[in-house]
C-alpha cells in the first residue's frame, strides 16, 4: 500500500467522525503519514456527516478525498452521493440494516453488513460504527486485537475508558461476521 484514501459518511450522530479518527490514529501508530478532514457546518447537525482519511507511506498532499479507495456509507443519502466517486476496484462498506438497496457499481467490491442490527443484538446500539469498522479491518487483513486496543486507548478519552471493552467487542462482532477472522 502506498496511499489509501477513505471516505466515511452517514448521519450526524452515527459516529462517522469517530470511526475516521480511529482509522487515522491506527495509521499513525502503524508509522504512516495520515490526515483526517471532517465536513463541517450545518450538515453536522442532523444531516449527513462525512470525513476524509488518508493513510500513506509518503507525506499527504491534499487532505481532501474525492476518489475514495474505501467508502463507508452508513445511510442511503451517503451511498447515493458517493457511490459514483469510488475508485475502480475500490471497496464500499455499507450498513445494510439502514440501506435497503444494493451497490449499483460492478467495478467495485460491495461489502454489506447489517451493522445497526448487529450492534443492537450485542447490546450496544450506539456502536454500529465500530461494528462496521471491525469488518473493514478484517476485510483489509488488519484486524489485530492488540493494535486495536492500543488505538482505542488513544481515541477514547480517559473519562470514557469503561467504553473500551464495549468498542472492542463491537469491532470483534463486525470482524467475525465476515468470516475473515
Amino acid at each position, binding site marked *: 500500500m502506498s496511499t489509501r484514501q477513505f471516505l466515511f459518511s452517514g448521519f450526524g450522530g452515527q459516529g462517522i467522525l469517530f470511526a475516521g*479518527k480511529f482509522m*487515522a*490514529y491506527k495509521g*499513525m501508530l502503524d508509522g504512516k*503519514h*495520515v*490526515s*483526517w*478532514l*471532517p465536513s*463541517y*457546518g450545518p450538515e453536522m447537525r442532523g444531516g449527513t456527516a462525512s470525513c476524509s482519511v488518508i493513510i500513506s507511506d509518503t507525506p*499527504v*498532499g*491534499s*487532505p*481532501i478525498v*474525492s476518489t475514495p479507495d474505501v467508502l463507508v456509507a452508513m445511510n442511503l443519502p451517503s451511498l447515493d452521493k458517493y457511490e459514483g466517486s469510488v475508485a475502480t476496484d475500490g471497496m464500499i462498506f455499507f450498513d445494510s440494516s439502514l440501506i435497503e438497496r444494493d451497490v449499483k457499481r460492478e467495478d467495485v467490491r460491495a461489502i454489506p453488513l447489517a451493522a445497526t442490527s448487529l450492534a443492537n443484538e450485542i447490546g450496544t446500539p450506539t456502536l454500529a460504527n465500530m461494528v462496521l469498522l471491525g469488518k473493514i479491518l478484517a476485510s483489509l487483513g488488519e484486524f489485530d486485537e492488540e493494535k486495536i486496543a492500543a488505538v482505542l486507548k*488513544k481515541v477514547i478519552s480517559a473519562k470514557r475508558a469503561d467504553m473500551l471493552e464495549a468498542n472492542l467487542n463491537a469491532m470483534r462482532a463486525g470482524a467475525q461476521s465476515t468470516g475473515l477472522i
Partner: protein
Amino acid sequence: MADKVLMKGNEAIAEAAILAGCRHYFGYPITPQTEIAAYMAKRMPKIGGTFLQAESEIAAINMVYGVAAAGYRVMTSSSSPGVALKSEGLSYIAGADLPSLVVNVQRGGPGLGGIQPSQSDYFMATRAGGHGDFRMIVLAPASVQEMAELTVKGFSLADQYRMTAMILADGTMGQMMEPVALDSLPVSPMPEKPWATTGTKMQRPHNIVNSLYLSPDELEKTNFARFERYKQIEENEAMYEEYLMEDAEYCIAAFGIAARVSKNAIDEARRRGIRVGMIRPITLWPFPVAPFKKAAGQVKHVISVELSMGQMIEDVRLATECRVPVTLCNRVGGMIPSPEQVLEAILKIADQGGKQ
C-alpha cells in the same frame, strides 16, 4: 522521536500558544475557528490563565491591546468577517508598537460569505489590516505541525519587532487533524519589556502606551522609525519552501491548503514528464521575493494557485518583475481547487511551451 498526537489545526494553535507562554486569550466564536476558543476555555483556567469570551470581536482585540501594553503574550482568533471587525484595534496596536498574535482561519467572503475554506483575506492581511501605514507579519501554515510551529514563531517575532503577527490559515487547516509533535517546538523566552505599563512603583518615569500624535512632525518620525524596522523584517524574516524547483521549467506559487493540493498535481505532472516545481511562501508578509526572482530567470511560466480571485498573484508578479507570464488557477466562495484542476492548468501551459 517524540510521541505524536492527532490534533485539529485549531487545537494545535491553541496548545502551541500556551506552550509559548500565552496566558491571555480573548475571542468571540465564529466558524471555522471556534475550537481555538473552546480549547482555551478548557485549558486556561487550569493553568492560571485568562479565557474571556468578549461581547464582540472589537472588544476582544481591544482587550488584546490592553494586555499587550502590560507586557504579556496575548492572542485573539477569529475568521474573516470577525477579523475585519478587529481592524481598528489592529491599527491601534500597530500605532502603539505592541506585540500580539492574531489568528485568522479564513472562510469564504465577502460579507458573511460562507463557512467553508478560503484564502481571500490575503489582501486584508498583507495590505490592509487597518487604517494607516502599517504592516503585520503574516504566517501561512500548510500543515497542523506548522500551525503549532508558526504560532510559537509568531509570538517571538511579535515580541522581537513589537508588532502583530498574524496566522493566516483557512477552514481546512483549522479543521483537519494530522500527527503533531508539540514537545520540540522552538519556544523562545519572552524578552524584557521595559516599555510595558507595569506600574512605576515610584522607581521610574511613567510608561505611556498611545497611538495618538497630534504633532505631524512627531507622527512622521514614528512612521519612519517603524518602517526602518519593517525593512529589517523584509531582509531577515522571509520564509518559504521549495518543492522540486531545482530543474523546474514551470513553477506553482501556492500557500496553505492550495500548496497541499498543488503538490498532488505536481507529482502527477512529474510522472508525465513535465518538470514543474513549487515555491510555497510561509511568510506572506514579508513576501519571499528572492526565490521568485530566481525562478523568473529559470522557469517559463508561473501559476498562482489560490482560493481567491487572485490576490497573492500580485506579489508573485512584483517578485518576478513581470519577466515571466503568471496565470491564476483558482476556486472561490468556499470551494477548493482539485488536484485535477491544477494538473489541467499545468498541462495546458506546458502544452503551449509556457507561452501565455
